Structures are given as C-alpha cells and as structure tokens.
C-alpha cells in the first residue's frame, strides 16, 4: 500500500495574469486543486468573457464546491487603472487566515516573429511591446509586494513564466527574446534583493509547446526555426500545457528550487 503525501500550497491568495486562455488558464485549473479551501484565485486578463467562463468552471469544480473563491479582474495591466484594479481586488480578497501569497506573472505576447531587427525602426512599436511584456510584470509585482509586505506566517511566492528565449537568441524573434531576457533579469534581481521571497523563473518549454508551435509555424519568418518546430511536432517532442503545468506545480510543492534561478522543464 503506497502512502500518498498530502501536499498543497496552503491557504493562498493566488493572482494569475493572462489567465483567460493557454498556459495561464491551465495554471488556474491546477492551482485550484492545490490550494486549501478558503483560498482565493484572482484571475486577470483583458478578455472578460473567457475569464468569466473559467470562473464558472472553477466554481462548479470540486475545489469550488469546498470553498475556493474565484475573482475575475478584466484589466489591461499596461494601464495604471488596470494595475490598481488588480491590487485593490487582491487586497479586498485577503483575509488574515491566508498563509500564502502567490503571484504568477504569465501574461505575455509573442510579438511579430515575422520580422528582423533591422525592421524595428518604429520606437513606439517597441515601447508598446516592452510595456506589456516587461513593465507591467515589474510594476504589478512591485505593487503586490508593497500591498502584501513580508510578515511572519505569510509565505510569498512570485513566479515568472520565462523561456529558453530569455537565454538564447533566435533569429526573427527579437522582441520576444528581448522581453523574456528583460523579465528574467527583473526576477533575478528581485530574488537577490528579497531573500525571504521565493522567486521562480519557470520555463515551460513553450517555445516548443504544441500551443505556440502551430501559431509560430505560419508566423515565424526564419525558415530554420519554422522547420525545427515542424520537426519537433512530427517527432512528438512537444508538450501540452497540462504536462508542462504539472511539472510547475511539482516544483512549487517540492519548494527546493533556488530562488531566482532559471528552472527549465527540460532539465527536470
């Protein structure tokens, strides 16, 4: 008879950005099963309909039926009012019996992967990309940490969904690589600065994932990258969001990763 370890992430307030679809949606579902009753999920995205559908699904689920609270914040994190709305809802949802704050910086965009560096002459386009992919995650994290300062009995975990692209340059992917490199550094600095905070830079293998490869296949300019995606797909080397998320949850539950380090699914 095997003993099953009953592991969970505590009674948590978990904020997930980009929660309406893709990896963020998968994280929301997985988190809901790993947090104790009385926990709160704050789901953030720009798309209200998709968020509310997810909220309804989670309310109906087992977790929902034993007391998981699911809040939706329809917000553009690139706007001050959007950011404030998330912080405010999080503060309103907090109660003293919660013992874990989890912030999942997942929202991101691919950017135009059909163009090369020499085509990015429009500064506003680059600004806009960095605003969504870098600035919003930095400011949201700083605001949440300010709203929920360190205190005894309260664990705080900050997750950044990163990528191999944070470490390795890819032709025709300048915005995505630059944004991921910038984000990963933000969270590395945070880890150095706040030793009591758990900071996880998790790379879900999305550069290969089934979800993005199909989108990328038609959009990537560079023929070598296009071919390598289709080869991986043909050889069954791509992961589903679910497989990748399961590994993320295990990393969180084991809780022995080095804060700030790049944790790649393919190394686990």
């Amino acid at each position, binding site marked *: 008879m095997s003993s099953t370890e009953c592991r969970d992430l505590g009674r948590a307030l978990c904020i997930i950005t980009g929660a309406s679809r893709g990896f963020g949606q998968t994280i929301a579902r997985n988190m809901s099963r790993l947090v104790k009753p009385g926990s709160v999920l704050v789901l953030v995205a720009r798309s209200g309909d998709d968020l509310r559908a997810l909220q309804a699904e989670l309310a109906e689920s087992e977790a929902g039926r034993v007391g998981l609270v699911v809040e939706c914040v329809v917000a553009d994190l690139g706007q001050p009012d959007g950011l404030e709305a998330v912080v405010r809802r999080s503060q309103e949802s907090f109660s003293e019996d919660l013992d874990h704050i989890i912030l999942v910086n997942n929202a991101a965009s691919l950017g135009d992967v059909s163009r090369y560096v*020499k085509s990015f002459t429009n500064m506003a386009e680059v600004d806009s990309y960095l605003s969504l992919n870098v600035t919003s995650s930095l400011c949201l*994290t700083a605001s949440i940490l*300010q709203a929920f300062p360190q205190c005894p009995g309260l664990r705080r975990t900050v997750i950044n969904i990163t990528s191999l692209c944070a470490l390795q340059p890819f032709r025709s992917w*300048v915005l995505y690589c630059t944004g991921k*490199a910038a984000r990963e550094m933000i969270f590395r*600095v945070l880890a*150095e600065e706040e030793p009591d905070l758990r900071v996880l830079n998790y790379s879900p293998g999305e550069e290969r994932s089934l979800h993005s490869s199909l989108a990328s296949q038609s959009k990537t300019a560079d023929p070598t990258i296009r071919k390598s995606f289709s080869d991986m797909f043909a050889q069954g080397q791509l992961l589903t969001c679910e497989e990748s998320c399961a590994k993320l949850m295990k990393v969180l539950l084991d809780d022995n990763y080095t804060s700030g380090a790049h944790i790649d699914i393919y190394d686990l």
Partner: protein
Amino acid sequence: MLDYKSSSESPTPCNKPTKMSGKNTTNRKTLGRGICIITGASKGFGRALAHEVFHLLEPGSVLLLVARSGTLLQELKEEMQSFTDKQQLVVHCVATDLSTKEGVNETVKVARQEAVNEIDHVFLINNAGSLGDISGFESLTDLEKVNSYLSFNVSSPLALTAGILQVFPCRSGLRWSVVNVSSVFALQALPSWALYCTAKAARKMMFSVLAEEEPNVKVLSYSPGPLDTDMQEEIQRLTGLSYRLFPCQESAAKLMELLLDNNFASGTQVDFLEV
C-alpha cells in the same frame, strides 16, 4: 556589494595609438573610411570614445556625435578640430534627445545625408544610457517611470540601430560594426538595480539576436568597467560606496584595440576588466 575585480597592482598602461602625423600608415590597422556614430558623446565614456576613434578613421570619414547638449558637443568638436581638419574628417554634432522618436529619426536623417560619400565601414556605438532608480524594487510601481526608462535604454538603441541598418544596407565591401555599451550587470543581478540590470540584459539579448540574423554585421557588447563618469559619481553618492574607478580613456582605448584586432565572435560580451 559591488563586485568589481580590482588588481592590487597599478593598471597596465594602455597602448595609446600614436597620433597620425600624416605619414603613410598602411602598416597600421585603421577603422577604414567610415561613418562612425556615437550616442551619448557629450560626456563620460562616449566623449572618450570620440577622442579615441578619430585617430583611427581614414580621410573622408564622418563622425556623428549625438547627445542632448549642443554646447558640450560643440566643445568636443573644437577639441578635435585641428586634427580632424588636417585628416579630412567631417564631424557633425547632432544635438537631440534619443529618448524620443524625433531624436532617433533626426540621427538617422543626418546619417542618411552623409550616405552620399563612399565609405567602407559603418560603425555604430550605442553608448547613451542612464542609471535609473536604484533605490529598490518596491519603488518601481509606476508604469510611466519604467516605460520611460526602457524606452530610452532599450527601444531607442533598437530603433536607432534598425534605422542606420536601413540607411546602409549590408553589401560586399562594406564593413559593419555595432557596439552595445553593456555592463557586467547585463549578466549579473544586483539588488536594488532592477531597472539598470533589466535594460542591460535586454540590450545584450537584442544585440545577440542581431548578430544571429546578420552575419555581415560584427556585434560587440562591451562592458567598459567602472569609470570616472558622472554616472559613477551618482552611484557612489547614492550608495555611499567608494571603489576604484578607471579613466574613460583607458577603457575606450581598449575597446578600439578589440575592434581593430577583430578577434571576437559576433554577439559576445567582452569585459574591460577581463581583457
């Protein structure tokens, strides 16, 4: 906290290039007849770069010095005047704000005007940069402040580099060099320095992607070491730390040596303290 390597012995005297006296220097390496663009040229490392580079440019070359201060740029131009006149080097001061698209466009426009001359080397040094708020992570809640910082330190050099690449498309016989003035903190995380580290990491990646894409463009991320600049003065004032600083001229000379030797792999980062 700041982990600069410091040798206990005095720094190795750098081999300062001897001033060209107009003699035939075909046995010395040069940067060719080029158009050389230096951003943040009015002070500090950028100014030192201007002083180093003009010795290495052949007659007919053009030097574009870009910064906000027209006055300081003009002073710099005058400092070099007797030599640049004798060597038939044209020096343009572009007084503009590179944190704006107008500033980037203006710089590209001036470069385009100079494209009429026959040149064999385009040489862009992305040096302009700022420190940002180093008081700590929790002071970084303001979207506009962070956006504005990233715009100047990341978007601007990307847009400028793209613009200059379009003015001078790669062709055989044209040498293309891009320098990204980087930092050890593009690779190493430093507590309280989220903005600076993030921008330097972003730039390093951006220029690495460029190196991957353009085999005919030689890309160097150069970490100049801690230098005697206004930026370092500000750092030491804010942090209360005091550590050894190197003269800008020494680091600038080292960069020129690296470029002339041309032995580095495109896209890599080289650190002044390690060469």
